Every structure is written in structure tokens, then in C-alpha cells.
């Protein structure tokens, strides 16, 4: 994230405001996206509350890299910023942000600067889940060395955090025009499109670094997080003179072509990748224009944004914005090259994205595309309640160390996520929607939650817990539509053990539906299960097999009982580290089959999804697990950390 660029963007607009009275209106239009975050005229807050960037992975298990030597006061998150060899880093800017989007205007994001010893602290925090962003120009927070994914977070009050900062990557090169002359003051962007291992990050709003060419056509983008990058010059927003946010130059991707012909450049921490020279293609630029319509006649308080994305990759190629009280709801996006795109409008209110248009395919072929109509419709939501079941109450013994540490803060420290069901293999034909991403919520103190900004369609509810003593016992859907339940009303107390086990975490939403009555039951007595994957013991006298490439494996736990074969809450999977270790937390007690198997990322698939989600792969998983036949019985509150799992099995 190169925020200072944003800062000066706001600044130059602010300067423009003074010059012309009438220009104020249009400048305000451009400023509005920035105002989503509490924003000063001089500098921009590190990240918008929606937090498009740097979403941590949701991959299985809770990979907490948190250390807790001496617990600080409950309401504080403290920490230390250190350098590559552990030396203290003073003067780093540290920002605390709720993990889940909060209502806009619900307080400011606390920030701090690390002191001489690298220490920082945030005090007086409400219970909840938080992310920490540390910024130091030219540096990035250390990421996983194999993938470049973030290692840390989220955090809870009481945590003590060590943030390690390493030198960011650099890409540099020269931009020339068709005649080979340098192009000055042209925007060049490096967009992180994949993790280093080739998998697509869960967020479609990737990290971007940006610079402008100098008079020699030279650009230098630094402070990049490790990953695979595409680099392009020109395109939307690349012209140097604001407020002309849209420039007419079409984007040219390194080395010299379209998005589809772009090279994906690996960038590692501290590495400088040079000679990424770009020769601008001189194809004509088109405009895509139209109007946005709202069913209520009004837009959300924060206006409407229009995104034009490459149909092939979902990467944004142009944006436009309409002010909330604009009477003329027309938009246009300049600098569009011929090609296939998807276009979608969203409208943001205080509760986040509250309305969206259907995403539509736009073909640009040798001419401007005009007269498009984007009709906003209200988005759906899913609400319900989280019910906490103490071990004693559930009629089971409550051994020491088996109880939740802070039951009173449990709801606020739980992450409830609704992920849209995506048909695999159909990626290419799918129209990209910027809302087709998992949306999360944290329940309030009473356990009530609402997941917002959902499009119609099938969703899957998942629950992430941050206390080792807890597991998800069941997820129940409201009764069928015949008798719609009242908002927030839990299911009748007659729920039996049998119906509790028939948990269904999949639900269908109609467009704009406000579904209520979801019930999540969380119980104490969770199991932790960790160990290592090892090659089979070689017969005496023979040379040992070379170890398998552990990082491409995943470990699965499946319910051993066949009658629970469809209970997805009893399927767990965890990645294997390069050292061969794996770790599960928050498991339901019971009998399982353990299986290690290679993890295959389907081409074009974003956000690796649990293998068990698909009926076909779930059956395959069961066949393989039954064949490998490594059963375990996990007692309530059991803590296993030395399990040795053989791969390949026998």
C-alpha cells in the first residue's frame, strides 16, 4: 500500500476546490471515494473501513502466530515492531482496524507510532476482532515465504503482537511510446494478482503499488508485498494532471500487450526486478458510458461506484463514481481498449454496500459503448444468533483448561462468514461480480449477527473461533418459508440432539432477501490435534524415500461414522507447512479418519475452497480416507500435538 500517493491526490483536489467555486462540486465527486474513510484534507487514512486490501486468508485452522508472554490489560492490544533480525523499529505507523466492516461513522481507526523500542499499544478497546497494519515507507510486514500471504491476525484485546517488517520488493523499468520515445508522467501500476505459489488471493481487490514515470520514462515502484505481479502503464487514472482522473491512454501491460498477454512477475521481499520495460501500444481508446438507476430514487449516503473489470481475470480496468446527491446519474469510463469486460455498480450506505446492479458483460469492439443501464437492487442479508453452550450445561464434565477463557466476550470475538457458492470449472463463463466474495460479521454482545452485502444465490455459512476450548456444534437454518420466523428469534427450545446434528450450513438467498433466524451453537470441549506428516518408515536396510513436497499437501479429518458423511461441520482440513507440520484447533470431539493428500488448485479458481464442499470430491475424500484407514478418537478437550501421519499411506 502506497498511501502517500493517495494523500497527494486528495491534496491536489483540495487545491482545485479553492480555485473555482463551481469546480467544487466536481472535485467533491472525485473526493468521495476517499471520504469513505475519515479523511483529512492533507493525508489519507491508511485503509478504508471496507478494507479492500490485504484481507488475511481464511484457510483452514487458526494459524495464530500470536505470542502471549505476559498478558496485557484485557482491553489493550500491545506489540512491538521489529526488523529483519529482530531489532526494534521506531517510528513505524501502526493502525488498528476492526476485522469486520463496521458502520461508517462508528468511530475512528486508532493509530500509533512505534517508540524507540519499537513498542506500540492500543488501549481501551471494546471486545472484538482487530487487524493491525504497520507501515514504514519501503517496507512490508513479513509474509509467508512460500506464498507471500500475510501471517498475522486477527487479534483480540489482550493479545501481544510482534510485527516483523522486511524490505519490500521493487519493480522498475522504462516506458516508451510507439516511436521508442520515453513517456513522462504516466502512471504505472504493479498489481499483485497471485500468491507466489500461483494461487489467487481470496480478495479480488489486490494490493497495488504505483508510480509515475519521470522525464526519462523511468518508473520505480517499491515497498511491494511478495507475490506475482502484473505491471501496466496508462489506463484509467494514469494521467498526471488531476482532476482528470481518466486518461485516454489504454493500459499496456508488461511486456507490451493486453491484460491477457501480461507477464506475471514474481517479486520477493527485498528483491529488485529491473528492466520491466513497457512499449505503449497505440490502439485507440474507447469510452464506456451509461446511467445508474436506483429503485428508491436515491443512492446510499456515499454514492455509487461503477467498476469495469476484465472479463478474463476480474481485475479492475476502470472506475467511475456518482455522488449521493447528484441529480444526473450518468457515468463514463475512458481509456478502455477493445476487449471483453464486466460492468457493475454498487452503492454504499452507512451499513456498507447496500445496493448493487447485476454485473453485465460489455464487449468493446472498435467503438464507444454508450447507453448502458445499471439498475441497482437492494442486497440481501443473513442474520441470526450465536448461542454459547458451556460444557457443564451440556451435561458433560468440564475438565480444567477446557473452558472458554473469556466467555463474556465470546460473541464479539467470533467471525461469522457467508461465502457465495461458486460453481467450479465455470469460471471463464462467469460474469465477475465484486460482491462474489465471502462477507463476514461479528455478533454483538448478545450474540446477534447480520451478514450484509450479499447477492442472491446459494451461500455457505462458516464460523471461525478464536478460543481453543470452543467448537461449532451446529448451524441451523430457519424453518422453511411457510411460516417465516421473526427476525432474530431463535428456533424453539425443543431442538433435540437429533435435529442439532442435522446441521445445514448452506442456505439460498433470493435477491434482496433479508433472511433471519440462523442459529449457530458453539460449545466448550473442543479438541486440538497437531502433528507431522512423515514418509512411511522404510523397511530395515533399504534407503529412505525422499520426503514428499509437504507444502503441497493438506491434512483432512473426516467423520468416521458413515451416517455423518454429509455433516460438513465434521470435515476439517489444514495446510501442511514446509517442515511437514500441521495443526487443527476448535475440533468437535468424536471419531475421525485422518488423511493427507495433495492439494490441487483448479486453474482460474480463486480462494482455495475446502475439498469437502463439493459432493463429488467429498465422496472421493471418503474413499481415500477409508482406504488409508487412519482412525483417531478425539475425546472432549483432548490436546494432541505429536501425531505422526504417514504419507503416502502404506
Amino acid at each position, binding site marked *: 500500500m502506497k498511501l502517500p500517493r493517495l494523500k497527494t491526490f486528495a491534496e491536489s483536489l483540495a487545491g482545485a476546490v479553492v480555485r473555482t467555486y463551481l469546480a467544487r462540486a466536481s472535485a467533491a465527486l472525485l473526493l468521495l471515494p476517499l471520504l469513505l474513510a475519515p479523511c483529512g484534507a492533507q493525508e489519507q*487514512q491508511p485503509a478504508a473501513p471496507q478494507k479492500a486490501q490485504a484481507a488475511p486468508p481464511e484457510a483452514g485452522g487458526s494459524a495464530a502466530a500470536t505470542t502471549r508472554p505476559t498478558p496485557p490489560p484485557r482491553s489493550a492490544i500491545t506489540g512491538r515492531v521489529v526488523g529483519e533480525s529482530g531489532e526494534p523499529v521506531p517510528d513505524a505507523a501502526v493502525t488498528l482496524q476492526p476485522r469486520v466492516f463496521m458502520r461508517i461513522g462508528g468511530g475512528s481507526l486508532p493509530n500509533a507510532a512505534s517508540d524507540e523500542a519499537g513498542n506500540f499499544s492500543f488501549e481501551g478497546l471494546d471486545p472484538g476482532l482487530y487487524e493491525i497494519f504497520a507501515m514504514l515507507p519501503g517496507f512490508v510486514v513479513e509474509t509467508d515465504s512460500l506464498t507471500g500471504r500475510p501471517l498475522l491476525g486477527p487479534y483480540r484485546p489482550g493479545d501481544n503482537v510482534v510485527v516483523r517488517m522486511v524490505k519490500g520488493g521493487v519493480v522498475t523499468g522504462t516506458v516508451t511510446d510507439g516511436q521508442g520515445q520515453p513517456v513522462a508522467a504516466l502512471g504505472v501500476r504493479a498489481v499483485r494478482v497471485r500468491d507466489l505459489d500461483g494461487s489467487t488471493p481470496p480478495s479480488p481487490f489486490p494490493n497495488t503499488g504505483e508510480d509515475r514515470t519521470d522525464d526519462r520514462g523511468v518508473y520505480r515502484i517499491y515497498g511491494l508485498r511478495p507475490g506475482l505481479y502484473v505491471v501496466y502503464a496508462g489506463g484509467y487514472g494514469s494521467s498526471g494532471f488531476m482532476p482528470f482522473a481518466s486518461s485516454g491512454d489504454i493500459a499496456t501491460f508488461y511486456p507490451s500487450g493486453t491484460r491477457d498477454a501480461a507477464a506475471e512477475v514474481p517479486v520477493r521481499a527485498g528483491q529488485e526486478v529491473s528492466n520491466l520495460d513497457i512499449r505503449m501500444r497505440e490502439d485507440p481508446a474507447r469510452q464506456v458510458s451509461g446511467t445508474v438507476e436506483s429503485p428508491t430514487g436515491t443512492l446510499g449516503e456515499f454514492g455509487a461506484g461503477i467498476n469495469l473489470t476484465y472479463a478474463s481475470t476480474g481485475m479492475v480496468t476502470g472506475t467511475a463514481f456518482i455522488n449521493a446527491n447528484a441529480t444526473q446519474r450518468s457515468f463514463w469510463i475512458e481509456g478502455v481498449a477493445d476487449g471483453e469486460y464486466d460492468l457493475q455498480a454498487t452503492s454504499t450506505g452507512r451499513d456498507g454496500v447496500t445496493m448493487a446492479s447485476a454485473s453485465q458483460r460489455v464487449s468493446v469492439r472498435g467503438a464507444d459503448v454508450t447507453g448502458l443501464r445499471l439498475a441497482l437492487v437492494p442486497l440481501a442479508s443473513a442474520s441470526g444468533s450465536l448461542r454459547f453452550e458451556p460444557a457443564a450445561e451440556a451435561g458433560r464434565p468440564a475438565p480444567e483448561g477446557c473452558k472458554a477463557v473469556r466467555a463474556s466476550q465470546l460473541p464479539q470475538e467470533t467471525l461469522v462468514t457467508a461465502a457465495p457458492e461458486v460453481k467450479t470449472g465455470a469460471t471463464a463463463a462467469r460474469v465477475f461480480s465484486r460482491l462474489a466474495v465471502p462477507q463476514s460479521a461479528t455478533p454483538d454482545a448478545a450474540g446477534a449477527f447480520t451478514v450484509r452485502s450479499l447477492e442472491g444465490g446459494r451461500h455457505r455459512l462458516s464460523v471461525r473461533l478464536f478460543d481453543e476450548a470452543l467448537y461449532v456444534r451446529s448451524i441451523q437454518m430457519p424453518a422453511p418459508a411457510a411460516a417465516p420466523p421473526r427476525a432474530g428469534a431463535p428456533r424453539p427450545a425443543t431442538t433435540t440432539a437429533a435435529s442439532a446434528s442435522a446441521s445445514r450450513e448452506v442456505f439460498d438467498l433470493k435477491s434482496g432477501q433479508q433472511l433471519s433466524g440462523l442459529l449457530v451453537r458453539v460449545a466448550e470441549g473442543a479438541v486440538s490435534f497437531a502433528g507431522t506428516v512423515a514418509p512411511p518408515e522404510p523397511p530395515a536396510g533399504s534407503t529412505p524415500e525422499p520426503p514428499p513436497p509437504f507444502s503441497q499437501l493438506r491434512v483432512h479429518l473426516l467423520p468416521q461414522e458413515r451416517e455423518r458423511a454429509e455433516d460438513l461441520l465434521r470435515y476439517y482440513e489444514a495446510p501442511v507447512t514446509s517442515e511437514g507440520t500441521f495443526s487443527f484447533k476448535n475440533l468437535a470431539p468424536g471419531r475421525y479418519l485422518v488423511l493427507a493428500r495433495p492439494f490441487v488448485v483448479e486453474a482460474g479458481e480463486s480462494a482455495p475452497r475446502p475439498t469437502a464442499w463439493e459432493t463429488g470430491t467429498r465422496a472421493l475424500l471418503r474413499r481415500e480416507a477409508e482406504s488409508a484407514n487412519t482412525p483417531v478418537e478425539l475425546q472432549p478437550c483432548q490436546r494432541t500435538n505429536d501425531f505422526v501421519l504417514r504419507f503416502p499411506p502404506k
Partner: protein
Amino acid sequence: MPKLNTPKRRHARGALAAASALLLALALPFVAHAQKEVPATVSGRITDGERGVPGVTVTIFANDPAQRFRTAARGKTDVDGRFSLTGIQPGRYQILPVAPAYVVAGLMMNYPPGRPLTLLAGEEVKDIDFQMEPGAVITGRVTDADGNPVINEPVTVSPAEQNAGQPRFQFDQRDHATDDRGVYRVYGLPPGRYRVSVGRAGEVGAVSIGRRKLFRRTFHPDAVEQAQARVVEVKTGIESTDIDITVGRALKTYKVAGRFVTADTGQPVPNVSVGYGTIDPRGRRLGGFGAGTVTNARGEFQTGGIAPGRYVVYVMTNQMNNPQEVAEFYSEPTPFEVTDADVAGLVVKLKRGAVVSGVVAVEGVADRAAAAQMLAAVRVHPWVESYRENAAMPGSPMRPVTVGADGSFRVTGLMPGKLRLGTMNDAVKGLTLTRVELNGANVIGGFDVAAGAQIAGVRLVLTYGSAALVGQTTFVNGTLPPGGRVMAAANLTGSTPGTRVSRTVEVDARGYFRIEGLPAGEYEVIVHVFFFNGGPGRARRSEPQRVVLGDGVEAKVAPVIDFNK
């Protein structure tokens, strides 16, 4: 659909045609460019004084905020420096050669940038020429006291002399910041003498909002006093290297904490944006800014990263993310000073502001439905003059308010002072605020609003006009000196005090101008030539010309600027 050269409608001149255009406009007031006229073409040449400069992008964009400076045409110069742009609808534009590494003669810091160009239907405009020379370059490295690079720190290059001529348009308005090696490179500079500095904290306080490092302003090579700065002299197209700067340690900053309460009941005010302003040594207020801080549920705020200095803290009442009810209040800024410790316990009191309400009326439109539709596009802008006159007052403009279907409007949270009301709209052409009435009497230049007053009975009269004025200015006994700007003003004559129609537009390089959407009446038209910052020439004006405009009529005027007068 491509932009066609086939006209759908000939350029209308007669009253009848204009009247039909009016009907069209009323039927589709929200559709921009509903009709296409015969497009114009523009050509010219870009030279370095002798030879043509190839490969320079030339852009023509709408000089109309409602159009958000939309690009109308764009192209590049050929090997001989010539360009030709076609298919441009008649209208008011700016033309700009995009040559950031060059100094373009006559291109000043006006807004929007470029040269004005008024195009008539079907025109073929030739000889729109520009001359430019390669700019100078200043480059160097910024390091701290330990020799480490100072990364992403903006570098300021400012003229060493006060009267170094007019500020030149900068293509890249973002800062020239140092990279990860501490290296910066500022290019496209006109020849001259410059001071180069980094850091922004000096004799005035500074707030590090993103908690970035804050450096004392330091000039090349290592001077904190401007008088000790080494001046860099640059020549056309020459690169000055090793203009290095060594800065001291990042400044120690402090935390400021306090709370917002209502003045009358002392209730805490949560979820409101906190604004700060700096005070210079003479006690003058130097602008205001948010710090990204919002009060919590108890009305408390805390902002870190504040360097020693004098400040005020106040409520940013015009922030979109404030709760609705905050619009009823204003605050007087609370002063404080940071020396060598955190500041706590500041109290900012929110006072219930005055309320001014009334109606907006549209004259000159017979159809009530059409008038109501126009009103939906209108916003009322309040402006209290005490904001400007009292240095300690927040400088934030107030938020515009919308107008109800019946024309009613209500402005709240006004601080005492002289209130001026304006209107604007982004959809309907030809609406002019012709008078402001208070209890039936015309208001001239605003009216006083006492603390907490409730003033009803304001009437804002908008007059719809469909007349147009096309002018062609002639320059005699000389040519327009570089840097000179020409404006044309049309004022309705014979108005009663407090009633006025006055419109000003920029005259293009050919002397053309066009003023649209004027109410019918007799106008006095004057063309002015003037210079910013005491430029090279003397201000001049044409003899006033009188012209009578009827509804839907386009009239022509031909003002003369005589450089001998």
C-alpha cells in the same frame, strides 16, 4: 456506436428552433448530449521554436464542471509536430498539450489547465499552435543524520525570488517524492533560481495524520533556515544533479485528547469528525483539516502525531459520516498549544446554530411540472462570511442542502455572521440565481444572522433563460502578451438593486466566447484582459456593448480590445 459525422440536427439559430430545443431540454433535462450537431475539427502544430515536436498528446476536454472535464478528442502530433482532432461537438473546451517534461509557453496555473477554446458547429479551426522548450531537471538524494535514505518524502522546489513570474502549470500535481533509495527527480522546470526542501514542520505546527515520520523543513544542502538554503540555478533542458538534502531526526510528536459536548446541556457528542487547524506566529489561522479522528461513544477524541505548535480543534460539521443531527450545530474552535508534552482535557462545545429556511422559485418556465423537475437538480449553498474574516474560525464550507419538491429548503447549524446563499445544479442549463429576497425585500450581498436565530421567509429566485450570446473579440494595435487572460462578462442592464444576471466566461485564443442559458433582456457585454501576479501586461477592457436578447435567440457581439488605449 461510433461518434458519427452525420448531424441529427442542424445548428439552430431561429427562435423556433431554439424553442424546440427548450422543449427537448425540458423533456430530457438529465440526458447529456441528447442532440448531436455538426462536429468541429481542430488542428495546429507544436514546435520547439523551430522544429515540430512529434509524439505529443493533445487533448481537448469539456470546460464544464458538470461534464467533469470529459475528454472530447485526443491525438498525437506527427513527425512534423502537427495534430488534427476531429468529431468535436460545439461547446466550450480547454485544449492542452500533454508534455510534462517541457515548458509550454503561455500555459499558466489557471484552472482547469490549458487554453480555452470555444467551438462552433461545423467549424474547422486551424493554427492552434503551441511552443515549448525542454524543462530543466533537479535531482538528488535525501538522507537522514545516520545516512539512511529518507523514503517517500515529498520534495518541494520553489522559486528563490518572490516575483519569479507567474506560477506555471504543473502536469504532475502530485508531489515529487523520494523513492526507496531516497532519490528524487523534479523535471519540466522553467529556467530560474530555486530552493529545494523536504519536510513540512517549521515555525508552524504540523500533524502527522497517518503517523508518518515528520521532519523539520530542511533546504538543500542541510539548512533549516530559508536564508541558509543554497539556491539552485537551472537552465533550459539542463539537469542539475547531486542536489542532496540531509535532514535531522524525525520530530517527536504528541497526543492531544479531549471531548465534544453540547454547549447547552453538556451532553457528549459521539461519532463526529474532529478538525484541526494550525495557527501561525502572527495568530492567523492557516486552513483546517481532519485528522481521521472521530469521537467515540463518550464523545471523546484522541489524536496522535502532533508536532509542537499552536493549533485549534473544532467540529467538522460538514463531514458526510457525521450523524445527521450534528448538522444542527456549529462549534467555535478551541485553541491549544503543544510544547513538549501530550495535551489532554480539551473541551469543544457544540452550539445550536441558526436556522434559515425558505423557498426556491423558478421564473421563466410556464410549465409547473418542468419547473419542479428543475428544482430537483438545485442545491442551496450557504456561506457564512465570519468563516473567512475571523482567522480563528474553521474554513470548511458548509454542506449544500437539497430543495424539496415544493421548492422549500432549510439550512441549519449556522454560526452567527453574514450569510450568503448561492445555488448550483449539475443538470439543467440556463438557471440563474437572479435575486435573494428576505420577507419580500431584495437582499444585497447577504444578510446578518444572529446566534441561534430562526429566520424563515427567504426566497431564492432562479430565472430560466434560453438566450445565447456569441462573441468574437478583435485585438488591435498589438497582440495578447503571454500570460494574459481574457474574460467576457454579460450583465443584465436596468435591473433593480439586488437583482442581477451576471455571467463571465473565458475568451478563447481566437477571441471567441459563448454564453448560454441567459434570460431575455438587454445585456452589457465587456471583455477584459488581465494578468495574474502583476504579469507582463496592463489590464485592459473593451468598450461596453449593449445587446438585446429574446428567448431562445442567439445574438452576436464583436468587442474590440485596443492595446493603444
